[in-house]
């Protein structure tokens, strides 16, 4: 677990050797009296996926927009060594952006890609390549409005990849997708990161997204970067305790409760004839070990994440 200005993923030595593609230094943004961002500082390297985690209004989307130069803010943001403030257009050539809400003109898929390709100075061959690669070949002549959420998300990714940018910014990438499309899309992103070394920064509030894709998680609270975590650490933090319901022989139940409370856990026997104990996520086996050490057999168990206390 790191805090403040941690720059590399713990245990990821190769990242140190790789190029730093994103540097965000003391970035602040106020909307009237409300601070949307407060001195956010971090870096990201080529091939790294960084999640921006936080509640609504934590500053995730504002930070992404600031990185595109769409929001004027204090501090410095460098992408590919270029300042977003001083060379916004040049920076946007290095960045592919996928917004949360897909907002396309009322056109067909190929025409939409063609328009953005012209903006980015990319030829028609690249459009065809991305249509094939992102599974849009069967929909190239379809109206964008007729596409499913998953296909629109793929189209947005295709637009983002047109100029083959080293950095991808994604705002809630799978928020509008069903489970199958979500897995599919995350695999696609993971592939871009590992095979092409793209730096991926994405705002998220979905644990499965973070677990599948992120190397590091920047935890934002009210515009402040409070800590940098690994996905596992985030899981433990977001879901700090689990509730175990244990079936133990009736004559050993009271002893089991005493054993567990004596070991520091909060435990009690409930009305169903079972023992309920709360443990930290990542330490679920310990109550079993403690009971086994006292020779108390556990016949069965149930697990509830973040459930109510009985």
């Amino acid at each position, binding site marked *: 677990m790191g805090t403040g200005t941690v720059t590399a993923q713990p245990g990821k030595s190769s990242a140190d050797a790789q190029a730093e593609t994103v540097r965000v230094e003391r970035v602040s943004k106020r909307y009237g009296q409300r601070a949307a961002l407060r001195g956010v500082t971090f870096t990201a390297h080529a091939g790294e996926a960084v999640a921006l985690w936080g509640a609504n209004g934590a500053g995730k989307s504002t930070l992404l927009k600031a990185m*595109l130069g769409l929001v004027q803010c204090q501090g410095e943001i460098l992408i590919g060594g270029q300042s977003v403030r001083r060379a916004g257009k040049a920076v946007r050539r290095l*960045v592919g952006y996928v917004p949360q809400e897909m907002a396309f003109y009322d056109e067909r898929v190929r025409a939409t890609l063609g328009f953005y390709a012209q903006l980015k100075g990319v030829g028609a061959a690249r459009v065809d390549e991305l249509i094939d690669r992102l599974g849009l070949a069967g929909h190239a002549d379809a109206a964008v409005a007729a596409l499913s959420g998953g296909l629109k998300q793929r189209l947005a990714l295709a637009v983002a990849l047109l100029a083959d940018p080293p950095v991808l910014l994604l705002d809630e990438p799978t928020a509008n997708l069903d489970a199958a499309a979500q897995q599919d899309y995350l695999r696609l992103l993971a592939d871009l990161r590992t095979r092409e070394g793209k730096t991926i920064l994405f705002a998220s509030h979905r644990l499965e997204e973070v677990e599948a894709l992120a190397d590091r998680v920047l935890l934002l609270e009210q515009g402040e970067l409070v800590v940098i975590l690994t996905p596992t650490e985030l899981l433990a933090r977001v879901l700090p305790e689990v509730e175990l319901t244990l079936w133990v022989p009736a004559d050993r139940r009271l002893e089991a409760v005493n054993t567990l409370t004596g070991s520091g856990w909060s435990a009690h026997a409930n009305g169903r004839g079972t023992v309920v104990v709360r443990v930290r996520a990542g330490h679920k086996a310990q109550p079993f070990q403690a009971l086994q050490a006292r020779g108390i057999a556990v016949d069965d168990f149930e697990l509830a994440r973040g459930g109510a206390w009985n």
Partner: protein
Amino acid sequence: MELRLFWTVARRELREALRNKWLWLYAAGFAALALALSRAGLSAAGYSGLGGFGRTAASLINALLLFVPLMGLSVGAAALAGDRERGTLLYLLAQPVSRAQGLGAAGLALAAAGGGSASIYLALAGYTLLLALTALGLGLALSALTRKAATAAGAALVAWLGLVFFADLGLVGATLALRPPPSGLLAWVLVNPLQTFKLGAIYSLHATLDTLGPAGQYAVYRFGDALPILLIGVLAAWCAASFGAAWLLFARRGDA
């Protein structure tokens, strides 16, 4: 490279502008009214061709005065706020496009979209184009100020009412109450782009001094043959100021 970007965005905006149902509705309404006025005027006169300033021309100028600012303001107001509401503005500005290119291309495309109706009356085309551009610039400025397309459309309507009716009523009221000298009256006329356009349009049709009114008579007396240059200059200044204000408001906003 930069010009290519500009044209790409402009073409895109033109396509969007031509999908604006209000533009077509106003254009069709204006065309129908203009044709009806022309036909009525020609039937009464018993001949065809441009006959200088008369009842028909006066009616057409008044129709232009009503429709051109309404079209310019409405289309301009719908442009940025509508794109912002749909999210397409954010997406466009997230591409390697500067704000100046985005606003400039939108202005050019919308002006081109309105150009068809402006060219109906070639004799007035210059003044009409400048008036349309001024209204478009004001509409874009309102669009840059507001977040929602509906708010922008409402503000455009209020601005149109203000320019078309309230300024006119204010001029009448002020003349009656304050009895300003002709120079003061002319200054008041030049403050309103619609009145400036009206004066220029009537003058361009070789109107008599009577039809120009006291402000117009004073303007002819004071500036003579240089009057069209002054009027075009005032309208051009209005045009530049409105687009300048739109640009400043759009740039200062700092978001999408």
